[in-house]
C-alpha cells in the first residue's frame, strides 16, 4: 500500500517536474512570427469565413446582414462564376500538359555538359523572376495583331494570317497559357534538371550494356526515377495555375467578353470592383478549397506511386 502510494506520488511528480522544466525558449523564439502570422494571415481567414456568411456591400451604408450559406448557394446559379470555374480548370489543364513536357525537354537538353551550359542555366531564371505585370505588358506589345513581332515571326514560317491572339475569344486562353508557360516552364526545367543530376548512374550503365535504346532508357529508367520530382513540379504549377490573375488582369482584363475571366480575376472584380464583399468572400473560399483539394489529390497520387 505504501509502495503503491509512493509510486503514485512518483508518477504524479514526473509530469509536474517536466512541466516545471518545460523549455520555453523555442516558444519565445517562435512567438513574434506566430503573432505576425495570426495578424496578417489567421485573422483575415477567420474574418473571410465570417464575411462569406453575410450580405455585405462595400458601397452604401447598409450594415452587413447574416444570410447563412446563401452566398454559396447563389454561386451555383451564377453563370459568370461557373464559367470562370470551368475556364480556370481548362487553363490549368492546358498549362500542366504543356509546361511539364516542355520543362522536362529543356532539362534533358541541358543534361549533358556542353559549351555555355551554365550560361543557359543562368538565363533560364530570367522569365520567372521578371516582374509579371511588366512582362505581361511587353507580351501585349509583342502580340499586337497588326504590328507585333509574333505576327511577323509567324509570317516568316509561312503563316501569314495567325489568330488575333488576345482579341479572339477562342485563342485568348491558350495565348495566356503560353505567356504563363513562358514565365514558369523554365522553373519546371530547373527543377527537373536538378532531379536529373541526382539520378543514380548505375542503372543507366547497366541498360547501355544490355543494349537498351535511348528511348527505352528514357521511358523505363529516367521517367520513373524522375516521377517524384515531376510531381513536385506539377504540384507547384497546379497551385499557381489555379490562382492565375496578374497577367490576365493586365493583358486582357478578363475579356474579350469574359472569355479569359479566371476564377481569381472574377473574385477580384466581384469583391473589390463591384463591392460585393460577402459574395466575393464565398468565391475566395471556394477557390481556396479548390487549390487545397487539387494539391492534396496530387500528394495522394504521389504517395500512391
Amino acid at each position, binding site marked *: 500500500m505504501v509502495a503503491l502510494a509512493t509510486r503514485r506520488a512518483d508518477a504524479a511528480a514526473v509530469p509536474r517536474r517536466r512541466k516545471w522544466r518545460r523549455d520555453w*525558449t523555442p516558444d519565445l523564439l517562435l512567438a513574434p*512570427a506566430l503573432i505576425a502570422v495570426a495578424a496578417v494571415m489567421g485573422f483575415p481567414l477567420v474574418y473571410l469565413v465570417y464575411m462569406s456568411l453575410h450580405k455585405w456591400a462595400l458601397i452604401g451604408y447598409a450594415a452587413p446582414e447574416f444570410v447563412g450559406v446563401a452566398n454559396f448557394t447563389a454561386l451555383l446559379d451564377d453563370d459568370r462564376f461557373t464559367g470562370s470555374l470551368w475556364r480556370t480548370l481548362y487553363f490549368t489543364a492546358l498549362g500542366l500538359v504543356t509546361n511539364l513536357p516542355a520543362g522536362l525537354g529543356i532539362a534533358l537538353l541541358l543534361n*549533358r555538359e*556542353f559549351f555555355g551550359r551554365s550560361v543557359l542555366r543562368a*538565363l533560364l531564371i530570367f522569365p520567372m523572376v521578371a516582374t509579371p*505585370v511588366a512582362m505581361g505588358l*511587353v507580351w501585349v506589345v509583342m502580340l499586337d495583331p497588326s504590328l507585333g513581332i509574333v505576327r511577323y515571326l509567324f509570317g516568316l514560317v509561312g503563316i501569314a494570317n495567325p489568330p488575333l491572339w488576345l482579341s479572339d475569344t477562342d485563342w485568348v486562353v491558350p495565348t495566356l497559357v503560353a505567356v504563363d508557360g513562358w514565365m514558369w516552364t523554365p522553373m519546371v526545367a530547373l527543377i527537373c534538371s536538378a532531379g536529373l543530376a541526382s539520378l543514380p548512374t548505375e542503372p543507366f550503365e547497366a541498360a547501355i550494356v544490355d543494349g537498351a535504346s535511348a528511348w527505352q532508357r528514357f521511358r523505363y529508367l529516367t521517367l520513373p526515377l524522375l516521377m517524384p520530382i515531376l510531381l513536385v513540379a506539377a504540384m*507547384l504549377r497546379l497551385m499557381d495555375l489555379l*490562382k492565375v490573375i496578374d497577367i490576365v488582369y493586365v493583358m486582357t482584363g478578363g475579356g474579350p467578353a469574359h472569355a479569359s475571366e479566371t476564377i481569381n480575376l472574377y473574385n477580384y472584380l466581384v469583391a473589390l470592383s463591384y463591392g460585393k464583399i460577402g459574395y466575393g468572400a464565398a468565391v475566395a473560399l471556394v477557390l481556396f478549397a479548390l487549390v487545397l483539394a487539387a494539391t492534396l489529390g496530387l500528394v495522394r497520387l504521389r504517395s500512391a506511386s
Partner: protein
Amino acid sequence: MRRGARLRRAGRAIAAWIVVLGLMLPFLWMVLGSFKTARDFLSYPPVWVFVPTLDNYAQVFADNAFARYVLNSTIVAAGSTGIGLLLGIPAAYAMARWRRTAVGIVLLAARMAPGIAFLIPLFIACLELHLVGGYTSLIASHLIFTLPLAVWMMVGFIEAVPVELEQAALIDGCSVPGALLRVTVPLTRQGIAATAILAFIASWNNFLFALVLSNDNTKTLPVAVLGYIGYNSIQWGALMAAASVITLPVLALALCVQRFIVRGLVSGAVTG
C-alpha cells in the same frame, strides 16, 4: 558510331542554345523597344536596327511621379523583407533546432491560399483602421509571402550549421538568443543575403496587394506601369522603358542568388 554520338551531342547543344535564347526574346524586344522612336515602333515589319533614342527614358524620368513609385517599391520591399527576416530567423531557428514542424504546416497553407482570400478581409480591416494607402498596410500584406519565404529558406540554412558550434557557445555561458546572434547568424549570412534578395524580389513584383492597398502616393511600380496603357492610347516606347527600369534590377539581383531561386519559388515567392 562515335561520329554519330558526337553529332548528336552537338545537335543537342545547338538545340539548347536556340530554345533558351528564344525564351530571351521578350527581354530583347523590351530593351530594344525602349530605345525606339514612335515611328520605329510602329513600322512593320519590325525593325531590328535603328538609331537609338533616349527620349523614352527621359520621358519616364521627367515624370516626377515615376521616381516616387521607384521609392515606394523600394520602401515596401525593403520593409517587408526586413521585418520578414527579423521575425523569420528566430522562428526558423526554433523549427530547425527543436523540430517545431507544426508551424511549417501553417506556412504551407499560406503558399496554397489565393492572395485574394487574405486581401478582401485585409482591405476591409484597413478601411476601418484608415490604413488604406499607407505603407503600413502594404508592408504588412507583403509579410504574407516574405515571412513564410524567410522561414522556409532559413530552416534549411540553419540546419546546415553544426549544432556543436552553438552548444560550445552555450557551455561558454552564452544565452540561446546570444548563440543565435553570435554563432548562427554570422555562419548563415550568405543564406540570409540570398533569402533577403528573394523576399525583396517577391515584394517588388507583387501586383494584386499593391493594386488594392495603395493610393496615388504609395503606388508601387507594377501598379504604376499600367498607367502607360490608356483606353485608346498606348505610349509604347515609354511603356517599354518603364518595364525595363522595373525588370532589369530584378534580373541583376536574381543572378546573384541563382542557386537559390528555385528553392525560393518553391517556398512561396508567388501568391496569386
